[in-house]
């Protein structure tokens, strides 16, 4: 039987070639959400799908996720940054995401919280997601309510995700060490030059136009809103800090 890593050929190179040839080897070549679009006012179970390791048979040994906290997040409307805060478009933005406990791949995990106790992310560690596997990391996405008085027809939430194959300092971030699926917002986790650069996972919440209609005259086609973690939040919340308060990743 041929073993998956018998041929010493970097996984991400193989994927790139496959994509260039017009084939899509699997739906989760990048780390993405299993359910990327959901209706408003609906709470769902979802998964972050780790599509692969860091190449050359390296395993993902830890995983860090940040959700925009809505406090100093970047808000865009139809692609353009706005000075509006997210509560102009979402009635209940905040503490919408909760980790679902699962030790099937990673033995240790915990949520990350802001100063008010709201969940702003989570981490998993102490495990192995093989390079050639897709691993599901479950979380629950709460019911987001789009502000009725707004013209938002959709709200796209951008996540910051790191799939870590080796624990290094930030200076050690490189191909084969970590996959950064993070928005390029000027944080220390942007990962310029790495193959996942500015290719974050997103969750789009669609307005329920039947039960929460827009004012057709004022809104026209409506607005596509995005909420993205700020650089400050990424720098603060991406690290993995264990329950004893020790930073595990990146190495300080």
């Amino acid at each position, binding site marked *: 039987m041929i073993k998956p890593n018998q041929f010493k050929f970097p996984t991400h190179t193989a994927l790139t070639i496959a994509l260039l040839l017009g084939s899509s080897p699997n739906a989760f070549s990048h780390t993405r959400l299993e359910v990327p679009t959901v209706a408003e006012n*609906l*709470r769902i179970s979802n998964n972050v799908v780790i599509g692969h390791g860091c190449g050359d048979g390296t395993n993902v040994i830890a995983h860090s996720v940040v959700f925009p906290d809505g406090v100093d997040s970047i808000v865009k409307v139809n692609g353009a940054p706005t000075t509006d805060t997210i509560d102009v478009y979402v009635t*209940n933005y905040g503490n919408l995401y909760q980790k679902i406990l699962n030790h099937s791949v990673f033995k240790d995990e915990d949520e990350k919280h802001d100063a008010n106790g709201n969940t702003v992310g989570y981490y998993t560690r102490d495990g192995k997601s093989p390079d050639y596997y897709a691993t599901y990391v479950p979380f629950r996405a709460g*019911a987001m309510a789009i502000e009725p008085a707004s013209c938002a027809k959709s709200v796209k939430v951008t996540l910051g995700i790191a799939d870590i194959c080796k624990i290094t300092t930030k200076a050690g971030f490189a191909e084969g060490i970590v996959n950064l699926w993070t928005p390029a917002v000027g944080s220390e986790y942007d990962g310029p030059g790495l193959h996942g650069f500015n290719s974050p996972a997103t969750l789009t919440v669609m307005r329920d136009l039947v039960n929460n209609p827009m004012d057709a005259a004022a809104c026209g086609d409506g607005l596509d809103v995005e909420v993205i973690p700020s650089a400050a939040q990424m720098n603060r919340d991406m690290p993995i800090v264990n329950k004893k308060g020790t930073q595990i990743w990146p190495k300080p």
Partner: protein
Amino acid sequence: MKFSILKQVAMVVFGGLMMSQAGSVLADNQGGSFTTGLAAGVDFYQITCFDDGNGAPSYAEAQVKDMTANTSKVNILLYKGTACTTNKCAQSSLDTTDSDTGYSPLIKVTQGAGTYYLFVKHTASGTDSYDVSAHCKTSGNVHTGTSFISRQQQ
């Protein structure tokens, strides 16, 4: 020491740590405290009521337990909306006895689905801890989707 014994010890320790983190705060309960101690301290939460499959929310109800015995007593104000004719928009409740395990009287604001605002205050200076219990229910009094956001902690 054999590996199997180590594993058992690790499980007991880990289980103990998990239990110690659970505390007395349950689902749809929100614990907090007035860490500044100031009399004017206000903690502020948003509660979202939505249909989680159990039916459309009709109202939110809440009560608070003052978990610290001292002069200061904890109270809550729950509010939503401005159409305050048939159904009240705002209700408040005070836990007058803080050296017991009981909650304050239950209050109810009937303003349907959406976001309710909950303010937690105390009657005097003190580093009170509290536990707020809040639920969204249908018109048939069935528990439905309830989620908290903490907006301000004083």
